[in-house]
């Protein structure tokens, strides 16, 4: 398995509180992604990064921000959590910049917003 860890693995938080999820990789891959997985929707891209300090929005970015200050870490922040952000969050990494390289996924973080 690719060296990807996510923390925390489970979190319950209250509406309106800020939450930060961490993705850490030991593969030195350039590209990192945050997805959310919801029943009936598959995985949807929230934000992605193509290098340190280089990030961009995906298809469901509202209410989320990201930061990447080091190659190995990609942080996802919910500025003010809402119940609609209850989901399972997956981080993915890729080292390929040609032809859509294979992505390797982390174990996921289950977030519940009450």
């Amino acid at each position: 398995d690719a060296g990807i860890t996510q923390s925390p693995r489970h979190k319950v938080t209250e509406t309106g509180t800020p939450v930060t999820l961490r993705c850490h990789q030991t593969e030195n891959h350039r590209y990192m992604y945050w997805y959310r997985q919801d029943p009936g929707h598959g995985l949807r891209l929230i934000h992605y990064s193509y290098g340190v300090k280089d990030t961009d929005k995906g298809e469901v970015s509202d209410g989320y921000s990201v930061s990447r200050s080091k190659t190995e870490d990609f942080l996802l922040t919910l500025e003010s959590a809402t119940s609609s952000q209850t989901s399972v969050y997956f981080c993915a990494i890729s080292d390929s910049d040609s032809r859509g390289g294979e992505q390797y996924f982390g174990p996921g973080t289950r977030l519940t917003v009450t």
Partner: protein
Amino acid sequence: AQSVSQHNHHVILSEAASLELGCNYSYGGTVNLFWYVQYPGQHLQLLLKYFSGDPLVKGIKGFEAEFIKSKFSFNLRKPSVQWSDTAEYFCAVTLDRGSTLGRLYFGRGTQLTVWP
């Protein structure tokens, strides 16, 4: 907008039955195609992928998929399923437009349940 359609939301089979899961995409250009599997409580793992060449692709655990360009399809098959194949299966696509970002577009997933 690009889209990936998986026709079956939940498939229930008995062991040794044959499996075919449908996947269609809506992009007229060159695509790269993937099938991922997610076992209960686990992360996504790559089953197989198609970039070019032989349209019949063989993956891990006896799975294969056929790319039919004229039908915009990439169906997943397995001749004889096992109880351990119980999982959720996702079809995904990236667009070969010279983008360096490799963004994956996922289908909604198909839950496969195999009864022993």
